[in-house]
């Protein structure tokens, strides 16, 4: 069983790295965003950001972009094309459980996010006087929690959407409003109140909040944790039911 899982994981990682578009949108896009927005906003310390600068505050937001794009576009696209191409059917004929297939995807998602985060922070540290995050060690488990909980949303979409085309269309339609309104691309504290209210209805907002608060020294955000927890429970339940039916 372990050998099978390790092999499945290796295979999924290889396949991810063979998709140039996937690597670009999930790993390199936030770096590109940093190269454009970093020089515009600079990294002067600001009281709005608890003594941190704009580039500092971009970091947790851009990490949330990776989590969002992989979970909402990458994962559903992979699962839907697996269904379309008969890959899920071939797996079904083998002695492996759907949980193993999902599990390997979730681990790939975590690895991609950690890889992307490392590239992003490395680039930022080279180009700007980046400040160290307030709680670097607590950010690691937070990143885990945020990625795994958000990836369940991807499994849900991947269980419902039958074709790669549908997955791409729906995934992007869900992701793009979140990209701007959750505060991932632009700090939410700069938004007018009505925009903040719309953002409050978006799950990605709580990924941003969780990571940002730890980054700028405001500790664990209980509300964000609770909402992400509810997201995991609801998604897994729905995804299991819907996946069984497919």
């Amino acid at each position, binding site marked *: 069983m372990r050998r099978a899982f390790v092999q499945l994981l290796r*295979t999924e990682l290889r396949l991810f790295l063979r998709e140039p578009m996937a690597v670009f949108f999930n790993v390199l896009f936030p770096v590109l965003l940093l190269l454009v927005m970093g020089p515009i906003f600079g990294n002067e310390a600001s009281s709005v950001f608890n003594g941190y600068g704009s580039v500092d505050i971009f970091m947790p937001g851009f990490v949330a972009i990776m989590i969002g794009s992989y979970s909402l576009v990458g994962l559903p696209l992979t699962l839907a094309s697996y269904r379309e191409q008969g890959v899920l059917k071939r797996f079904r*004929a083998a002695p492996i459980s759907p949980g193993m297939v999902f599990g390997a995807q979730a681990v790939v998602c975590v690895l991609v996010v950690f890889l992307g985060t490392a590239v992003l922070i490395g680039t930022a540290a080279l180009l700007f006087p980046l400040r160290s995050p307030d709680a670097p060690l607590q950010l690691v488990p937070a990143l885990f929690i945020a990625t795994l909980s958000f990836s369940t949303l991807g499994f849900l979409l991947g269980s419902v959407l039958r074709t790669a085309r549908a997955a791409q269309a729906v995934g992007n339609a869900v992701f793009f409003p979140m990209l701007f309104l959750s505060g991932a691309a632009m700090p939410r504290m700069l938004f007018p109140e009505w925009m903040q209210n719309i953002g409050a209805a978006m799950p990605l907002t709580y990924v941003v909040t969780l990571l940002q608060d730890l980054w700028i020294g405001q500790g664990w955000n209980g509300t964000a944790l609770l909402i992400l927890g509810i997201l995991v429970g609801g998604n897994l339940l729905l995804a299991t039911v819907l996946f069984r039916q497919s």
Partner: protein
Amino acid sequence: MPSALEVQHLRKNYGGTTVVDDLSFTVEAGEIFGLIGPNGAGKTTAIECATGVRTPDAGHVRVLGTDPHALPQAVRRRVGLQLQESGLPKRLTVAEAIELFASFYPSAAPQEEWLERWGLAKHHATAYADLSGGQKQRLGLALALVHDPDLVVLDEMFAGLDPRARMESQQRVRSICEQGTTVVLVTHFMDEAEALCDRVALLDEGRCVALGPPNALTNRLGASVRVRFTAPDGFDPETLMGLDRVASVRQNHAQVAVYGHDPLLSAVTKVLDERGRRPSDLRAEPTSLEDVFLRETGTALAPALTGETTGF
């Protein structure tokens, strides 16, 4: 030793339509068994229910003596399934696919040897999407057999293959069986089934209409030859019934099929010649499973499958 596959009173409905209707058959260890019938007869649904891939609405199923719904993983470790419409990720290479699927089983064949045996060594680094139809099918077979299963199910393995690849596939099915694996062949190709199978179950609208060895089924027709031709204008095929070689005559529009025994062709030719109108498409063939199917259901397989433009 338990039967390789035991199916009793299997039933499956989809949205109010009965796709498999009270189907029963048994596959004995060591044989090549054919589940045959036209597209839409319920073959795929039946075999997927029988192997635990789908859940039947009613019926009793045992795979190698085990209930595939109670112990799915145990059954899948001993069974190879080449299901219809199953594929692999586009960018996965042949060698990686074999490595991956071999890791699912405790006792899988060594990779190098497997690539060699299935004629895939040359293509080991080729991505799945770049393989030809025949190569994809060979890889599918290799993956279904990588753990040396006791039973292998091959659903429509001849579909979409050119004649040479079809011949090659027949050879492979024979050699799989010779190595001690029981084979269930699901197909709408009557010729392949007749050439390969020890026994066949003929399905129509979810029901089994005939079950037995192909030659026993054709023997029961009471005719060894079939002569077909397009009736010339004004010709009444009923006149052929008087010949002592003729067992039965069927007509569908201008198409006539005469069943009987040799020398049937010369007898029919003589009658037609006496009227001075020998049709250019006059031909005789040994009776086959197709004729069994026709007799049992009153309809022919879809025209494209039998090579005919009209059914009898």
